[in-house]
């Protein structure tokens, strides 16, 4: 009772003290700030009896702080928006046939039709494992456009060939030229090639942009229609020379041949093949 009265007295006093709220008179606000609403916080309404122990209980404090009229909710706009954007769960599709009702309501996302008896174990996180298309392509410093390369593998092994550019997959685009040593526009692998120090000046030589990896890739027909007898016939094993290849070859070679003619003996050099003989050791040769 005495205790109740005491708070009753304290209440009005504190109310007065406490009403320094947002809408209040400018004189009570911090000096000069009329635009900024300085929120002054009330001192603790829960007198301390001992350290860590307050006079009033949780529920009493709820009442004292008037939280019943201070219920705030977070701004709902985004949630409302997201709620509105739930994807369509079903779709109505027309159905044919007589006396069928004309349409059915079909679920768009259906339940799985099979659950495996043993779940696949979760894979551990791996790091730095990139797919081939994201690999970093490198090119040896000794290989620049116009370098004469010696092919070491393939049907053109031993032939000396002019390097044009590196393609997206990292393979080197190379040409004989065709009239010199019968090597067409072709791809070569960097690792199976010796780069010589002989270089042809290819400034101003324009290589058509459609010469990419997909242009050179081997084509495979894959529509056997499950007839095993005909599979081996339909797959192209013979390479057929197309007109486009001829045109491209001509376009590139004509530019290069002009440069080759300027250097004495270079044409003969490109015509010759590389070979080792007695007393010739590759590790001692300067290419």
């Amino acid at each position, binding site marked *: 009772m005495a205790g109740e009265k005491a708070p009753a007295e304290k209440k009005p006093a504190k109310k007065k003290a406490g009403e320094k709220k947002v809408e209040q008179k400018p004189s009570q606000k911090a000096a000069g700030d009329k635009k900024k609403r300085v929120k002054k916080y009330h001192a603790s309404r829960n007198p301390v009896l001992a350290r860590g122990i307050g006079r009033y209980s949780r529920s009493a404090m709820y009442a004292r702080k008037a939280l019943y009229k201070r219920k705030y909710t977070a701004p709902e706009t985004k949630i409302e928006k997201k709620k509105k954007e739930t994807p369509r769960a079903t779709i109505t599709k027309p159905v044919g046939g007589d006396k069928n009702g004309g349409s059915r309501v079909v679920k768009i996302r259906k339940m799985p039709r099979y659950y495996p008896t043993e779940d696949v174990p979760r894979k551990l996180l791996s790091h730095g494992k990139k797919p081939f298309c994201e690999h970093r392509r490198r090119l040896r410093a000794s290989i620049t456009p116009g370098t004469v390369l010696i092919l070491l593998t393939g049907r053109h092994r031993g032939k*000396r060939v002019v390097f044009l550019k590196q393609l997206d997959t990292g393979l080197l685009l190379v040409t004989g030229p065709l009239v010199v040593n019968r090597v067409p526009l072709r791809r070569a692998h960097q690792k199976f090639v010796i780069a010589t120090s002989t270089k042809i000046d290819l400034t101003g030589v324009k290589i058509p942009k459609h010469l990419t990896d997909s242009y050179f890739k081997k084509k495979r027909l894959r529509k056997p229609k499950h007839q095993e007898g005909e599979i081996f016939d339909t797959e192209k094993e013979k390479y057929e020379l197309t007109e486009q290849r001829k045109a491209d070859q001509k376009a590139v070679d004509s530019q290069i041949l002009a440069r080759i003619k300027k250097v004495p003996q270079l044409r003969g050099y490109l015509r010759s093949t590389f070979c080792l003989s007695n007393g010739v050791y590759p590790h001692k*040769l300067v290419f």
Partner: protein
Amino acid sequence: VFKRFVEIGRVAFISFGPHAGKLVAIVDVIDQNRALVDGPCSGVRRQAMPFKCMQLTDFVLKFPHSARQKCVRLAWEKENINEKWSATRWAKKIEAREKKAKMTDFDRYKVMKAKKMRNRIIKHEMKKLQRMASKKGKKPEKAVKPGKAKKAEKAPKAKKPEKALKAQKAQK
């Protein structure tokens, strides 16, 4: 039997070691195996060097034993050892060996072509002589002709392919 001796002023060629390939003058003998050596004009500091890594050349300089570097340099430049050395066959062989090692693939091709052409010309001339000799039978002229003709051959030969060889090496 021995023509080149280790003496003060003898110019030596260093065959192996950190100063391989340089010329040096023997200034003094330290003991049985080492000499005090100095190469002011070839970038070798005055130091002790074992005889084993030195190969004696034909050149001898005149300076007293333990002469200082200035004297050695004067004597060296007076005799013009650097030029004399590069004129010797020894130095030329070394240079040729170096050039051969540095030959690129293209150079090797060019040399091959030049050699081939040269050999063809030689063979052609030889065959000509042989034919002439066999036609005319065994006459004393035969002994004289091939000798003279060979010398005449080598002159035209020398022009074409030698020029080509030299031109390539000069290009490098």
